[in-house]
């Protein structure tokens, strides 16, 4: 990283896809086409709304995608509200990244059977990993994806989940929604209980991302099922301003989530003060 | 002084033991002769550290916000000037009366450590209070200083030794520092300047601000749940000044906001790490409110109508404040 660690580059928004009632996927390219910068699955980047500031988001698209980057973003505050209401294709946007570590697709995940567990917008960073693996299919074992949302309308990238991934060899997608819904024939119930029902063997490596309470309960379920905490990778989300471990916001114990994370194993989290 | 301290410890022990209070707000001995910190004592805490002498300037009234909110009944030791703050918090409906056990605590004036250093006490190792003088042990030997020379500025504007609210009292009231002939003498001096000179004075003072927020955080009249200057949606939030109008904005808005509620406790002037004369700004407002809408001494009681929110037919029009002649007439 060089001087540009604090200085964004200018990209152009080429497509905005409404995924759910409050989630959009923003596609960003170089003004002349192509990707703004390379990244790895799980890494993050800041998007700027001049006048309001920057916020950091995980990069949802796979590194193997050479045409563009995607960010799936939920409305939660001033910047994300503006992205939703004030941005349209053709608009230029400042992007700063990539920051942080990534899921260990180059070593620890290689050759393993993998279990992805996502809840709500938490699927965003996992999507980058899954698509990366699918583009390097031979290097990895079976892939199970368990994804829970409030309702059928709250799944992000529903088409990919139902029409793309399940048709790939060795990939199973297990969807669940919180409450029964007309026309829904799939599973109903929260993710942690669904996990127990699915009774996965504990030899898998797990990538887990979702709201804090879901992570906590899923981890309990996984432990009961025989998984060790060092088999489970998750990502943390904290307020960040610099992305390079200087500004102090994402400091937890001796770690800085922006550079030492956002990806941690759950046993690493156990060693950190409980402030995330 | 020893005696008051003993009485305070006994009182604190008694109210904690008999359940009259859940906690006691007092001052705790520091590592130097002068750095006593406000502290919350609870049942089981060692009261030997409870201290009271000329280095207890902090006004404990504001901590009642937290104890009152937590539903705790707090016994609080209050110097006469601190009692104004409690009344004002009550009048502003920021604390609950039943949750306060106000204990009047005599004060003969508090000492300014910076002035002590300035009076030839470079490295302060020990201080003995001998009434009118302090004997200070410094690295270079003993120094005797007249207490009147090193009192905090806020004590030079002392409002007297009467408690405005007290459920209980400790000891007997002390002789206070000589009442100032005119509490607003410095304000009058500023008023005598031309508008350009005044502007230059305040520009110079406020340009020193580093926006640490200490004046706000210590102020018993600043009790908003979230200050507008911290609120990301307010449009005026900020952590540093990007241009010179912003520092003036912060302090002037704050002065307007506490106008009519500022008791003149002088804590803002005491705590400013940059030495800005914020007390003068607030005193100017207090003086004008007293003159035009008064008589008004915020905190003198907990229930009289607040001048800023009570209309009277005889109230002057706002421009009266800017008319020098008008003002001079009233003070003639």
């Amino acid at each position, binding site marked *: 990283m060089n001087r540009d660690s604090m200085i964004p580059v*200018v990209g152009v928004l080429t497509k905005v896809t409404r995924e759910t009632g409050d989630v959009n996927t923003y596609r960003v390219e170089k003004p002349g086409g192509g990707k703004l910068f390379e990244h790895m699955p799980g890494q993050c980047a800041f998007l700027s709304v001049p006048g309001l500031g920057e916020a950091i988001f995980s990069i949802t698209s796979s590194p193997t995608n050479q045409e563009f980057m995607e960010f799936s973003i939920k409305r939660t505050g001033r910047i994300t509200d503006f992205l939703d209401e004030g941005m349209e294709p053709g608009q230029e946007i400042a992007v700063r990244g990539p920051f942080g570590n990534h899921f260990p697709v180059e070593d620890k995940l290689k050759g393993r059977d993998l279990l992805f567990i996502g809840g709500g917008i938490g699927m965003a960073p996992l999507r980058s990993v899954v698509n990366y693996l699918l583009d390097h299919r031979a290097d990895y074992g079976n892939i199970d994806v368990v994804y829970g949302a409030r309702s059928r309308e709250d799944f992000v990238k529903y088409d990919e989940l139902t029409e793309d991934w399940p048709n790939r060899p060795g990939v199973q997608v297990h969807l669940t929604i919180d409450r029964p819904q007309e026309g829904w024939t799939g599973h109903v119930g929260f993710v942690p209980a669904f996990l127990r029902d699915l009774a996965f063997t504990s030899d898998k490596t797990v990538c887990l991302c979702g709201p804090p309470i879901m992570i906590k309960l899923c981890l309990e379920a996984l432990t009961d099922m025989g998984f060790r905490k060092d088999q489970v990778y998750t990502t943390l989300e904290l307020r960040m301003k610099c992305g390079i471990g200087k500004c102090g916001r994402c400091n937890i114990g*001796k770690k800085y989530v922006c550079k030492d994370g956002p990806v941690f194993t759950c046993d690493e989290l156990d060693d950190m003060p409980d402030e995330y | 002084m020893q005696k008051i301290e003993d009485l305070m410890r006994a009182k604190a022990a008694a109210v904690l033991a008999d359940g009259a209070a859940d906690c006691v707000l007092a001052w705790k001995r520091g590592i130097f002769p002068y750095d006593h910190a406000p502290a919350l004592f609870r049942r089981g805490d060692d009261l030997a550290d409870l201290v009271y002498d000329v280095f207890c300037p902090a006004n404990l009234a504001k901590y009642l916000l937290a104890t009152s909110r937590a539903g705790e009944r707090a016994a609080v030791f209050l110097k006469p000037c601190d009692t104004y703050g409690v009344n004002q918090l009550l009048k502003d409906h920021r604390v609950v009366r039943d949750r306060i056990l106000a204990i009047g605590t005599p004060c003969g004036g508090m000492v300014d450590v910076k002035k002590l250093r300035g009076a030839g006490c470079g490295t302060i190792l020990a201080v003995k209070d001998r009434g009118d003088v302090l004997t200070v042990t410094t690295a270079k030997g003993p120094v005797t200083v007249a207490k009147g020379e090193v009192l905090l500025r806020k004590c030079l504007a002392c409002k007297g030794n009467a408690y405005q609210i007290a459920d209980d009292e400790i000891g007997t009231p002390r002789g206070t520092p000589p009442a100032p002939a005119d509490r607003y003498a410095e304000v009058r001096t500023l008023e005598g300047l031309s508008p350009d000179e005044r502007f230059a004075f305040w520009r110079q003072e406020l340009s020193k601000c580093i926006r*640490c927020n*200490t004046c706000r955080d210590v102020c018993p009249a600043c009790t908003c749940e979230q200050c507008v200057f911290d609120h990301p949606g307010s449009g005026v939030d900020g952590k540093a000044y990007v241009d010179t109008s912003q520092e003036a904005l912060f302090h002037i808005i704050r002065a307007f906001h506490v106008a009519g509620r500022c008791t003149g406790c002088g804590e803002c002037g005491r705590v400013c790490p940059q030495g800005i004369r914020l007390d003068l700004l607030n005193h100017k407002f207090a003086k004008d409110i007293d003159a035009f809408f008064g008589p008004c001494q915020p905190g003198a009681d907990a229930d009289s109508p607040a001048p800023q929110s009570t209309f009277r037919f005889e109230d002057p029009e706002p421009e009266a404040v800017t008319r020098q002649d008008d003002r001079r007439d009233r003070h003639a």
Partner: protein
Amino acid sequence: MLKLELRHLGALLDALAGQGKVYAPFRQGGRTDFAWYDGTAGRDAAALDLEHHTARAPKDVLFPQVEDLLRFRQQGKKLGLEAAPLPTESVVAFGVRGCDTAGFAILDKVFLQDPADLYYRARRDSLTVLGLACGELEETCFCRTFGLDPAAPGGDVDLWLAGGALYWQARTDKGRRLTEALGAAVPFTDAADTTADTAAGAAADAVPPAVAAQRDAVHASYDRLPLAELRFDDRLYHHEREAFRSPVWESLAATCLTCRTCTYVCPTCHCFDVRDEKTAPGTTERYRCWDSCMDRDFTQMPHGNPRKGKTERFRQRYLHKLVYFPEDHGGTYACTGCGRCLQACPVSLNIVKVEQALAADLGAVGAAPDGKGGAQ
């Protein structure tokens, strides 16, 4: 070592100004603080104050309270972006005490650690530090707790005020370059010339008797300070978990105002915010500015705050200095014993009180382990 009569201080300031912007301690309105020697009224050789300690650390010289990063220009859907130029102008910091050069070293660990902050690095590279040995100490001084020596400031050039003169010793290449560049503009004399005991080849680094005497006097007065024997308990950073869970935080934080005084006077506090300011239609300036972990907004997220209240924020500030930073930097505390927070805190809370309370609470944990074995 060189020597300069004090009556030439004005000439020295002017000569330094010829080498770069000069940042020096001036006394104004009864207090001393670093400020730019830029012709502003009241900042002249007469107001130069090499005796009193400054109320604030000189960290602005490397890490300004407000620093421009870039400017956005929006026009329709186009977005222009101009990065602020790197601050490469030469700067001389004059009269920096040992606790504050140590503060610079701690900021270096943060900002120069990979990936380096290039704005900071540009300022660091263009800064020459003229260190100043302490004369009068304050009772709040405790630099020796961290192995520092108040008589050895550790700048590029070290200065001593002794025997009515200023002694000047270049210690680094930067310091030697500056000394050479000043040349004849400053009427230095060779301090060795004035000493009698230069028989052994008149070594350039021989210590003149006046300097030696001043150094001994400072060491002797340090020994008499209330905090002279203060040691921070190394067990703290071997017991992060116990320190984090200690019950002391609740009672210590109860009377903290969570203002930013301690943060802003501190030589090592370095948290910052990045903010945008719309300065004209279509124009936004982005800058960074000092921030404090004591601030409620600091870790506020849309869905909540991982640090729920004042106690947690207070704990973060002190654990960062006493535990997290030493864990990450080989036992170096993020404190240099300058004592400013001891003097500035409006309610007399400070790092020494916190360290002592925490160490007392952890007393039951046991002696410092060799590694982290005891942390379970």
